[in-house]
């Protein structure tokens, strides 16, 4: 018995051990790679006799990342930021070298502007802005007493940073590169199979609203994640770069298809709820061929290729069924509902076909030939007031410390000011910046203490680069291990930064304990000031105020759909929508009243906005009688107004305008295609389960929806 037990237990234990070791090994591999880059950069910088090798070494720590695509992307933007920053530094110093007040003022305004720019972008683009800001300060402030040296300072900083980036890029690409491309491929494939499986499961039945909402959230997240990955992977993988547009198209088609799919299901749900069984069942039957079209093994690439012919057949079958199913209905209302639904089903089938087609072509060795004429871009929804807050914070922090520096004539005031500025910019978009800055500060303190021990008790005993590297290794490795372990990331970051900063490794090493301690105090004060700044001017991210603003922008998307120029509008609408929704989702607790209100609004906006865009496309492409145009324009205008500022009055105005437009269209022959869109919009407005229900005059006011942001 004992033998059996042990054989059963051993593999489990071994498995746990192997998994733990594998995780540790990946962290340590990363540490080793970073350290190779770190010391290699230091060695080259010393050989080239750059004035401050330690700032080149710091760069390698800053860009260190698990995937080489991330390293390259971050390096790229850090490079751009540094170049812009140094150029601006030269301009500022040449303009205000004699005027300390104007100098600090212009510097802090520039940094504030850059910080504001940073909050407008996701991923590493925002980092380029932060760097352009504090890069300027790092070049300009040290030469304030000797302005003629500004060119040397700029040149040195640029060479150091670029050297660090170059070495990091080469090391991460050449030494056991970890590919992000695989992650992206997997994400794309999962997005595809998840969506197709959901559609397949939903065809021919009624999907409960909750399942729909969850699916919507999932799809939004998938679309945004894929776009984020794409923007980094293009730096790592040349094939992805060649296929970048195709990937964008794939994503756009995904968003368009999922919106049509949702509209269709809401329509069927509404008909069922209104007990219009005949129309609903006719639609479900019309929809059935798609199920046959989607049967087959799931998967992007070849499997998707196999889905294409059945989908074409399904589309033909739908066209054939429309006539017979329409003939089976008698009631005028049923007929109108059926026409609306049939148009939606056709649109959905076409979009599904396009989506599957682009998925099938993703893996072929030949890039996709037909990049559509419409501009394929993923637009982001940005909030300019939040950016303004970030700007005010960075500028005020810098001005306050600058004033303190001028008043106290503290020799280390400039380095405190620099560090405060750096962190006020870096963490402006972090979810909980006060806490993060605080933890980084503790890490800094520990790292600098270690640096003190290493510098004055160990490095004084040794000579030469090799021994220096061996002696620094244990200190920096501890920091890096913590930095790459998610739980202790901020602490480790502070540790590694503080250590590298205070060591100040150089060709001619300076050993001055008093200077080191003073410098350390200045760093801590700088970090403390940054943390205080986040308390005094709290970040907009995560506040109910910003959430309300984002929701208002999301609703404003309907106004965009109604007014913006048509070319490229479909993609713009979908991508901004998804970006906004994912931003708000990130800031709300799942399942809370806010979150439910958000999803309700998002679904309404998606549906109505798409219908409005489709209607405008039809209006532009066909001959609409002049007598009809004012009605349609009024309906669009009222709709936009209702979604921008929803209340009972605007709701009634929008509802009536749409009804007037519908009766206007009915009076003209041959305009039935407009009717499809208009009745879809009308049904969305009358839906008693959607977000707009709270504004219906006769409805009991559903508090949580009405007052939700």
């Amino acid at each position, binding site marked *: 018995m004992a033998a059996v037990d042990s054989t059963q237990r051993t593999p489990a234990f071994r498995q746990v051990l192997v998994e733990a070791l594998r995780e540790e090994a990946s962290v340590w591999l990363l540490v080793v790679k970073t350290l190779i880059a770190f010391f290699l950069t230091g060695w080259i910088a010393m050989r080239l006799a750059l004035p401050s090798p330690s700032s080149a070494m710091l760069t390698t720590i800053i860009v260190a990342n698990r995937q080489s695509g991330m390293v390259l992307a971050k390096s790229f933007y850090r490079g751009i930021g540094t170049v812009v920053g140094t150029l601006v530094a030269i301009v500022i110093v040449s303009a205000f070298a004699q005027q300390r007040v104007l100098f600090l003022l212009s510097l802090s305004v520039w940094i504030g502007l850059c910080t504001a720019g940073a909050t407008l972008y996701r991923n590493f683009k925002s980092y380029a802005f932060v760097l352009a800001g504090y890069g300027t300060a790092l070049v300009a402030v040290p030469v304030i007493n000797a302005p003629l040296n500004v060119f040397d300072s700029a040149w040195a900083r640029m060479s150091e940073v670029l050297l660090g980036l170059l070495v990091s890029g*080469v090391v991460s*690409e*050449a030494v056991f590169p970890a590919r992000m491309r695989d992650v992206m491929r997997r994400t794309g494939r999962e997005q595809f199979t998840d969506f197709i499986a959901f559609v397949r499961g939903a065809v021919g039945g009624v999907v409960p609203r909750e399942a729909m909402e969850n699916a919507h959230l999932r799809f939004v997240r998938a679309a945004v994640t894929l776009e984020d990955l794409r923007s980094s992977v293009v730096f790592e993988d*040349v*094939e992805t770069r*060649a296929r970048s547009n195709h990937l964008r198209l794939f994503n756009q088609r995904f968003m368009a298809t999922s919106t049509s799919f949702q509209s269709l299901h809401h329509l069927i749900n509404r008909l069922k709820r209104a007990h219009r069984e005949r129309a609903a069942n006719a639609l479900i039957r019309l929809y059935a061929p798609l199920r046959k079209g989607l049967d087959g093994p799931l998967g992007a690439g070849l499997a998707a290729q196999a889905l294409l012919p059945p989908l074409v057949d399904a589309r033909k079958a739908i066209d054939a069924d429309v006539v017979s199913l329409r003939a089976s209905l008698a009631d005028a209302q049923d007929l109108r509902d059926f026409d609306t639904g049939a148009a939606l089903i056709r649109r959905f089938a076409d979009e599904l076909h396009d989506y599957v087609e682009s998925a099938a072509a993703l893996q072929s060795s030949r*890039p996709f030939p037909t990049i559509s004429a419409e501009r394929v871009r993923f637009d982001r929804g940005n909030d300019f007031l939040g950016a303004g807050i970030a700007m005010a914070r960075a500028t005020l922090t810098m001005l306050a410390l600058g004033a303190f520096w001028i008043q106290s004539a503290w020799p280390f005031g400039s380095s405190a000011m620099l560090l405060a500025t750096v962190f006020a910019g870096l963490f402006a978009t972090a979810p909980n910046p006060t806490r993060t800055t605080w933890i980084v500060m503790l890490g800094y303190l520990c790292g600098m203490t270690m640096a003190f021990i290493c510098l004055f008790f160990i490095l004084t005993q040794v000579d030469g680069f090799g021994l220096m590297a061996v002696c620094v290794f244990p200190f920096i490795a501890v920091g890096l291990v913590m930095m790459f372990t998610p739980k202790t990331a901020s602490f480790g970051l502070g540790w590694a930064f503080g250590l590298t900063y205070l060591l100040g490794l150089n060709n001619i090493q300076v050993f001055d304990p008093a200077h080191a301690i003073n410098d350390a105090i200045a760093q801590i004060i700088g970090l403390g000031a940054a943390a205080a700044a986040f308390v005094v001017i709290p970040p907009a991210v995560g506040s109910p105020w910003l959430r309300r603003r984002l929701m208002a922008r999301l609703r404003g998307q309907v106004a965009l759909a109604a007014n913006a120029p048509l070319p490229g509008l479909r993609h713009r609408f979908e991508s901004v929508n998804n970006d906004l929704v994912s931003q708000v989702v990130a800031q709300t607790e799942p399942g809370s009243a806010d979150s439910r209100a958000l999803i309700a609004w998002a679904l309404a906006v998606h549906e109505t906005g798409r219908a409005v865009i489709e209607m405008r496309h039809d209006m532009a492409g066909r001959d609409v009688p002049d007598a009809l145009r004012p009605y349609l324009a009024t309906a669009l205008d009222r709709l936009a107004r209702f979604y921008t500022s929803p209340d009972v009055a605007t709701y009634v105005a929008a509802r009536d305008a749409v009804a007037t437009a519908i009766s206007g269209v009915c009076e003209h022959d041959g305009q039935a295609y407009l009717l499809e869109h208009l009745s879809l919009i009308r049904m969305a407005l009358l839906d008693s389960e959607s977000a707009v229900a709270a504004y219906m005059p006769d409805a009991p006011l559903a508090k949580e929806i009405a007052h939700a942001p």
Partner: protein
Amino acid sequence: MPGLLVVFVVSLLVLWALDAVAGRFGLYRLVWHPSLFRLAAFVCVFGAFAYFLF
């Protein structure tokens, strides 16, 4: 020094063009270690410039 920086940037552009061609036809699929290959290609380009210009 600035002369070399210009050459460096130009070779980066050349490498970028090579990448575009190779990515278009999937040539890197035939190579064992694509990034090492790219690095080597870059060193060749940069070295060739330096060899012929200086």
